[in-house]
């Protein structure tokens, strides 16, 4: 099959899946006496109608992009790094170690003031990498499947987070830290909620992963392991070492995503700090079928959903007011429909091939 035909097939699958998912949402809305078309209009206006909304979409996309970039590495090697959520959480916690100690006034810090954010980001990467490293070691040394280890580490990271915000780091009546000082936050433009530094870091990370997968020995080895780990090992690929580094790099990027959530999105540490961006990254990579080139547009599309859903949730018009969870339902339904669609397409192609073989 030619490149164009493949591309057209994928686009067709995606469109069909999109229609299926939208139909599901419309049916749910109609059954609740809401107006789907009015809601759709309000949703699109709310998500991309104004510069500030578009800025929100871009910023919401960054943590997802970081997670998706890391997961591209692990999925390429055939690893299900479900533990990405915990790695995001640990990143946020590690960034907070520095962020919560920064005073409001750092005017006499001189050159050190410029080092606060880089130090936070590095520590966050260390936290995420550490957590991923544990999952990798459990897999390599303990023979524990990375899905199970990841799930366990996700829950443990949440327990650590809750312990901190309920205990030593708690400020005030709610289980959360105090808002971080401006110097501790990711620098942002005053008029729009936009952080050029954040955008730069996320794009650079994604670009590095893209290039690593495309044209380095590391990427080639990960692909070989993903195809068949045993054959790769026999042919001299150091499977365990590559798996370890794929996991650790993914963890570092997830940790960075956690830092974005704490130092930009929320501006403090609180329960559910990850906001599900790790699992969102898994959905994105699954939707693209682990194809790096598609990750960027799909991530932007996925970031539109929570922003638009939030506008609907806070709308005063009861005909379109609807809980933001429906946005998550839409994303899940879309990915499921794409998976099913690609399965159907592959099945049809196989049948066509068989038929042409037999006569």
């Amino acid at each position, binding site marked *: 099959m030619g490149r164009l035909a493949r591309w057209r097939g994928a686009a067709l699958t995606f469109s069909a899946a999109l229609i299926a998912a939208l139909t599901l949402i419309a049916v*749910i809305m109609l059954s609740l006496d809401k107006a789907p078309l009015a809601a759709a209009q309000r949703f699109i206006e709310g998500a991309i109608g104004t510069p500030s909304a578009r800025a929100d979409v871009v910023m919401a996309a960054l943590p997802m992009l970081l997670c998706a970039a890391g997961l591209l590495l692990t999925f390429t090697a055939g690893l*299900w790094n*479900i533990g990405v959520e915990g790695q995001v959480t640990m990143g946020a916690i590690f960034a907070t170690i520095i962020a919560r100690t920064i005073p409001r006034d750092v005017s006499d810090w001189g050159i050190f003031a410029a080092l606060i954010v880089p130090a936070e980001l590095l520590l966050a990467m260390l936290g995420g990498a550490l957590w991923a490293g544990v999952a990798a070691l*459990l897999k390599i*040394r*303990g*023979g*524990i*499947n990375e*899905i*199970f*280890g990841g*799930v*366990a*580490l996700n*829950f*443990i990271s949440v*327990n*650590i987070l*809750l*312990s*901190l915000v*309920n*205990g*030593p780091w708690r400020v005030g009546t709610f289980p959360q830290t105090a808002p971080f000082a401006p110097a501790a936050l990711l620098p942002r433009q005053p008029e729009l909620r936009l952080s050029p530094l954040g955008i730069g870091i996320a794009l650079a990370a994604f670009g590095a992963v893209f290039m690593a997968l495309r044209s380095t020995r590391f990427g080639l080895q990960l692909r070989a392991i993903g195809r068949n780990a045993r054959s790769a090992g026999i042919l001299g690929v150091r499977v365990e070492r590559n798996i370890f580094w794929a996991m650790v790099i993914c963890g570092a990027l997830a940790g960075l995503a956690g830092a974005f959530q704490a130092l930009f999105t929320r501006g403090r540490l609180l329960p559910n700090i990850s906001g599900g961006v790790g*699992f969102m990254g*898994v*959905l994105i990579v*699954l939707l693209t079928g682990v194809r790096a080139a598609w990750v960027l547009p799909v991530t932007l599309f996925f970031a539109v959903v929570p922003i638009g859903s939030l506008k609907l949730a806070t709308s005063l018009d009861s005909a379109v007011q609807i*809980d933001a*969870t*429906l946005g*998550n*339902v839409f994303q*899940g*339904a879309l*990915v*499921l429909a794409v*998976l*099913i669609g*690609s*399965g*159907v397409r*592959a*099945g049809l192609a196989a049948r066509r091939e068989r038929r042409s073989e037999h006569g």
Partner: protein
Amino acid sequence: MDEVLVRTFADIVKVGAPIVLAAIGETITERSGVVNLSLDGSLVLSALAAFVAGISTDSVIIGILAGVSVGLAIALVVAVCSIELKLSQVAVGFVLTLLCRDLALFLGIPYRNAQVFPTTFLPIPVLKDIPVLGAIFFNQDLFTYLSFIAVIAAWWWLFRTKPGLTLRAVGERPQTAFARGVNVNALRYLYTAIGGGLVGLGGAAYTLGVLPTWSDTGVAGNGWIALAIVIFGGWYPLRVALGVYLVAGLRAIVTSVQAQVPPQVVELLNALPWLLMLLTLFIVSGPYLDRLLRVLPPRLHPLIRTVLRARPPSALGTIFEQEGRR
């Protein structure tokens, strides 16, 4: 025996019931070679379905039926995607678990802590008067008995019947089973559906028995626990049930000391079940069990191996290309 202790044990068996049902369902499914990773979302969505159906008809039976059908339907999606469409079971299951959970969170908003389902408490006459055991096992609600039945029935079916042997063969050596005339994929459909139905029953056990109200936070997460316990229990129903009670016991201990220790410690203690499972699996599945055995007296070796052995069904998660008839 101390009365408080008896009551604690009775409580552990009761709150463990939904997880037992879900984990036994998953054990049966995985024994046939299919991973139903949608467990957590399945549990939450079927819990909601059971609650809504139960509360609007005032009938436990209809509530249970609703829960079971939802669990069964989700499991069938996994089976169809795997068997007909040759998709990764893990991918489909993972997406389904997120989708079903979010769907339940959304659809459950109007029912959040709205009502309490009337009790399904059902003490069994005569048996409940047996000292100690009666109070723990026969003075319970309906779902607790169902969880006992599920464990014993699953064990009996898997290890004491011919169809059970076939079921294990399908999960271990599908090619061999097929060569002996077994319709591998049909059996996988069957046992995935049965397993999903049990997960749905587990969901119903939450909202109609244990809680008994609709609360997403009371259910979510327990499906992941159940999935982990299936591995922890080495795909043996009795060990799986023991694993559930161990986890429920740890939780009971944490609850009982909650008032005495600061909240940050309580939160850390909540991580204990997961730490325990990670540690056990680390020892059991790695090379460390042999090292451990070396320092223990040889007489204990067979016993320890029987208790700790854990090996997944060989064909778990794989797709079987069945030729000819379906």
